[in-house]
């Protein structure tokens, strides 16, 4: 190639693009893009092991060698490591390349045991497949292979077979680069290299399952899947994980009508192929012995199996009574387990047909509906692309692990700034300016952050305040701030959160600021969007705007707002409530005030539970209806961003369990009412018509496929450009695809989506899109901001939970990923993982009560007390005790000032 050719090329091109030739095909790719990706764009697949599109390249496996022309003639170079440049001439098929591939594979197989017949990976193994496609077919190696004990457990979830390992370093890189906890690393050198943990420290990362997912051989296997299935028996469907409110996209795989494995799908907007272990292995709870198999009723004092007809009859009778008179004497708690369609069906049943507004999906730590709907939401991508991220409240690694990964990635790769406002330091704190806060001084801290002068005794506040100020003062609308918020305490809504958010909005008024709520329950957003909260109606509208609903049969709609979960339980405890309906919520272990929950359960006349597993609450029910769960049901899910994506069914449930929406329809039918729909599609159509933020959602959902669609429709531009498919990225998905169960069944992603007549993505908004007037932007009233640190407690006039005696200290209950909720408790492998029962305290508190790390302490709240092991952590706020929301701490809810005693 002459130099004039090159100059011409450059002139034609956008400076961010380069033009090169791969196997005679000219391609234009982004500057800096790796040859292996450029080759994919030219339709050429280059074999690979170590390369993973979501991790930095290392070029260690040498499988991807290609020939690149240079002034000194063509040379072999690793295509996963060489960036594309103008005028490059690349050959991926030459004799030299083929010889190199042969050699690399023969070399990799030298120590590989070739135990494919008993290996879980056999059938979906990149090493196996690429050996067939690119390998020599025979080995010259006749010596003894190296031997290791196999397999060894490196954690309670992951087993390692070192003989099969080809040292691609995908797992070690993942744990260091992506998860930030390098608990595994290479040990030794040369032919003795092995992956190893440090002997006393198992690989107990929350993200350990991802290493199994990306292992290109059978070296890493996950216990729940070991010997459960052969890849050629697998079927799969694309679905949404329902273990938290992030809503990761997963491939749910089954064999012989049994879910055996979840794999993460690479969706740019959400999980980028990663999953947390709770989401990945939680499916085992489907097959728990505690699973409800049939409807049950308490007959002569015992809970007994009954027929659906009997159960429905009973429930319909109770509901019909309330419909006739006393619609305010029935209350409904729960609903975040449901699909959107089921939530809609229940809302219609309770609000539209029975006529009560006492419905609360109970996302207990939600701030206010106003801030949830009134503030401009950020998508996860927008958070990751922000210049400044402020997290308020929970430890994201425990509550939204994938969001944690995305934020960590944004900080490390894009150098986004992070200010963390929370009760204790988290794994993100090392990259952040961490500001300690507890439940009672929240307003003060926010005020001093924004006012900038905190009396300067707190260095972190001063630092953070400076950072916030410098961003706010840029007054550049291109500068973006993302505020990721939740309550400080898992059990208590933070009453002054809304005020704090509006102060922040005022403070950042000259830059772009967006908000992302971290809801503590999986489909809490969907349940709220479908109206499962006092005063709410489907599609983010309120009782007063019910016109559309009347047309589709919501005849009994109440006009007065109902009461929330806490008030409902109080009514029940005082015998002022006749019927309590619990939908997938176990208030006797989950509600923050156990005493109140117990009283309520004891004093309510009818306790009707619609559930998936037997639990302490529904064991006392009048009537229990078994519902479908997880990969057994279809529908849609709305995550914290407001992104709606599909939940798809893959297996059938226990013989007598029924999908929730169908239970609602049956009850209505038995009451002599007509719900107006008999299938999921009909519900979706109805939602599309009557739920303002969801107008047109079914079409949008189908059109966009894997990334789902953010509601309100048209509010977010959506990119449908996808990276070329990489079969080695998640080998388990690609191979199952090849076997005839395509992942995107029913939701094919069109390469160019431009059907003018249907839902249109991106800049063109939908013609019938309207946002309900009630939830316009929150009016910004920075109340009491002028007075400095004196707001806070004084404004906090609510009665529950009790005020904190700050002379003693404050207990903050935090959520943990591996909690003791139904999901973890009933998942065989996850339930075996021990949760440590610890209380974290600050060094100064440890000093003043005289305890050391490893001691046991007794925490007393009112008459209740519980024991914990102490962890002294300098990251904990002063005079604060951090405990996890586990059984041990539950007895401590809702009493006065906390006392700390050292147990000798």
């Amino acid at each position, binding site marked *: 190639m002459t130099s004039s050719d090159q100059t011409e090329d450059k002139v034609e091109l956008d400076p961010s693009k380069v033009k090169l030739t791969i196997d005679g095909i000219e391609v234009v790719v982004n500057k800096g893009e790796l040859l292996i990706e450029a080759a994919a764009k030219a339709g050429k697949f280059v074999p690979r092991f170590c390369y993973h599109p979501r991790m930095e390249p290392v070029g260690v496996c040498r499988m991807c060698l290609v020939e690149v022309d240079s002034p000194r003639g063509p040379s072999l170079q690793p295509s996963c490591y060489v960036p594309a440049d103008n005028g490059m001439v690349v050959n991926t098929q030459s004799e030299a390349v083929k010889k190199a591939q042969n050699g690399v594979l023969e070399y990799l197989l030298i120590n590989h045991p070739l135990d494919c017949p008993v290996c879980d990976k056999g059938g979906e193994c990149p090493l196996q497949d690429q050996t067939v496609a690119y390998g020599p077919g025979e080995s010259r190696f006749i010596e003894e292979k190296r031997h290791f004990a196999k397999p060894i457990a490196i954690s309670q979830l992951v087993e390692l077979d070192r003989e099969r390992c080809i040292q691609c370093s995908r797992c070690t890189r993942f744990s*260091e680069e992506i998860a930030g*906890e*390098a*608990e*595994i*690393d*290479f*040990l*030794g*050198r040369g032919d003795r290299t092995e992956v*190893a*943990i*440090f*002997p*006393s*420290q198992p690989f107990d990362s929350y993200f350990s399952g991802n290493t199994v997912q990306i292992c290109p051989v059978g070296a890493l296997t996950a216990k729940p899947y070991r010997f459960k299935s052969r890849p050629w028996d697998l079927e799969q469907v694309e679905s949404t994980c329902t273990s938290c409110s992030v809503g990761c996209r997963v491939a749910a795989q089954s064999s012989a009508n049994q879910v055996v494995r979840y794999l993460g799908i690479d969706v740019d907007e959400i999980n980028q192929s990663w999953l947390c272990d709770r989401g990945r292995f939680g499916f085992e709870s489907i097959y728990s012995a505690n699973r409800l198999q049939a409807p049950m009723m308490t007959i002569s004092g015992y809970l007994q199996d009954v027929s659906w007809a009997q159960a429905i009859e009973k429930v319909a009778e109770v509901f019909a009574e309330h419909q006739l008179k006393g619609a305010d004497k029935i209350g409904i708690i729960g609903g975040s387990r449901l699909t959107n369609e089921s939530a809609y069906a229940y809302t219609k049943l309770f609000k539209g047909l029975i006529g009560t507004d006492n419905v609360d999906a109970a996302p207990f730590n939600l701030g206010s509906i106003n801030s949830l709907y009134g503030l401009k939401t950020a998508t996860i991508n927008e958070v990751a692309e922000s210049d400044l991220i402020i997290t308020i409240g929970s430890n994201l690694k425990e509550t939204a692990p994938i969001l944690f990964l995305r934020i960590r990635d944004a900080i490390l790769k894009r150098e986004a700034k992070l200010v963390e406002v929370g009760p204790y330091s988290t794994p993100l704190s090392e990259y952040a300016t961490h500001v300690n806060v507890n439940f009672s001084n929240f307003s003060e801290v926010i005020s001093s952050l924004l006012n900038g002068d905190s009396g300067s005794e707190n260095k972190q506040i001063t630092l953070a305040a400076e950072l916030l100020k410098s961003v706010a003062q840029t007054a550049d609308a291109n500068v973006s701030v993302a505020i990721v918020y939740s309550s400080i305490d898992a059990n208590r809504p933070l009453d002054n959160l809304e005020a704090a958010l509006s102060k922040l909005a005022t403070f950042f008024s000259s830059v772009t600021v967006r908000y992302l709520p971290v809801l503590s329950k999986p489909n809490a957003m969907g349940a709220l969007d479908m109206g499962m909260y006092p005063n709410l109606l489907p599609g983010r509208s309120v009782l007063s705007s019910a016109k559309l609903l009347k047309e589709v049969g919501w005849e009994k709609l109440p006009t007065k707002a109902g009461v929330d979960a806490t008030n409902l339980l109080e009514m029940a405890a005082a015998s002022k409530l006749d019927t309590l309906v619990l939908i997938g919520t176990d208030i006797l272990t989950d509600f923050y005030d156990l005493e109140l929950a117990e009283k309520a359960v004891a004093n309510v006349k009818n306790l009707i539970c619609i559930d998936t597993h037997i639990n302490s609450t529904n064991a006392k029910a009048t009537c229990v209806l078994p519902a479908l769960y997880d990969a057994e049901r279809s529908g849609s899910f709305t995550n914290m961003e407001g992104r709606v994506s599909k939940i798809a069914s893959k297996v059938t449930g226990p013989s007598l369990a029924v999908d929730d929406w169908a239970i609602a329809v049956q009850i209505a039918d038995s009451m002599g009412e007509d719900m107006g729909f008999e299938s999921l599609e009909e519900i979706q159509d109805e939602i599309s018509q009557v739920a303002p933020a969801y107008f047109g959602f079914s079409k949008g959902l189908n059109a966009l496929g894997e990334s789902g669609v953010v509601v309100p429709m048209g509010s977010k531009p959506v990119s449908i450009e996808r990276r070329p498919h990489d079969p080695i990225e998640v080998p388990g998905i690609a191979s199952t695809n090849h076997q005839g169960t395509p992942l995107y069944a029913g939701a094919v992603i069109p390469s160019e989506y431009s059907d003018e007549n249907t839902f249109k993505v991106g800049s063109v908004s939908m013609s019938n899109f309207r946002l309900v007037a009630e939830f316009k932007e929150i009016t910004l009233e920075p109340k009491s901001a002028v007075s400095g640190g004196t707001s806070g407690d004084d404004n906090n006039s609510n009665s529950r939970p009790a005020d904190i005696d700050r002379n003693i200290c404050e207990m903050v209950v935090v959520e943990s990923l591996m909690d003791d909720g139904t999901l973890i408790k009933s998942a065989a492998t996850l339930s075996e993982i021990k949760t440590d029962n610890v209380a974290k305290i600050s060094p100064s508190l440890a000093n003043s009560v005289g305890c050391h790390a490893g001691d046991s302490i007794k925490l007393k709240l009112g008459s209740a007390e519980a024991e914990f092991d102490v962890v002294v952590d300098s990251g904990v706020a002063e005079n604060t005790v951090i405990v996890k929301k586990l059984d041990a701490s539950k007895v401590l809810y809702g009493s006065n000032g906390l006392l700390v005693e050292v147990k000798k």
Partner: protein
Amino acid sequence: MGHLSEEIINKANILLEIYPNKRSALIPLCHLAQGQDGYLTPEAIVEIADLVGVTPAEVRGTASFYDMFHLEPVGKHVVAMCTNIACMLRGADELLEHAQESLDVGIGGTTQDGQFTLEEAECLAGCNNAPCVQVNHRFFGPLDNEGFDRLVEDLRSGKLKDEVPEHGVLNRVDRNYGLKATPDQVQAERDVMESAKKERLAKKSEAN
């Protein structure tokens, strides 16, 4: 109280200061820890990990790459015997066999009295004295079987105490913290080089 002595922690803190990245001090810290215990104990690894801000698995993994770090207890004298080409031609393989017999240990093993650990090494850069061995990084050679036995005897009896210090104390870090030259000195040296180069160029152009 930590496992590493206060003295080592103090040295470690000086070392941590002189690197732009804390983790760059990992290898020198491993040397220090090995100086204390003779090998890298799990306790020391955990403390080093804490000091440089990585995980114990990473410290262990990194240390395992280098032959001079030991993850298991070793004898007082670490005998490294070269078997690369020059030594091999001069009978290193036979010598290694003899050593195994006379010490009654395998390669990588430690004698029961805890005196000797025998290792097979790649080229030790002592080819002029092939076959050569290193004992605690001190050179001996050329050695034949008798010579080796004599060396072992001398080490055992303590005759070579002054010449061969106990394993673990050879420690470059001990002798030298960071750059000895100050930035000024470095600059001055560079200036001299620059001016010399200019002179040479001037002479060259004159000659042309």
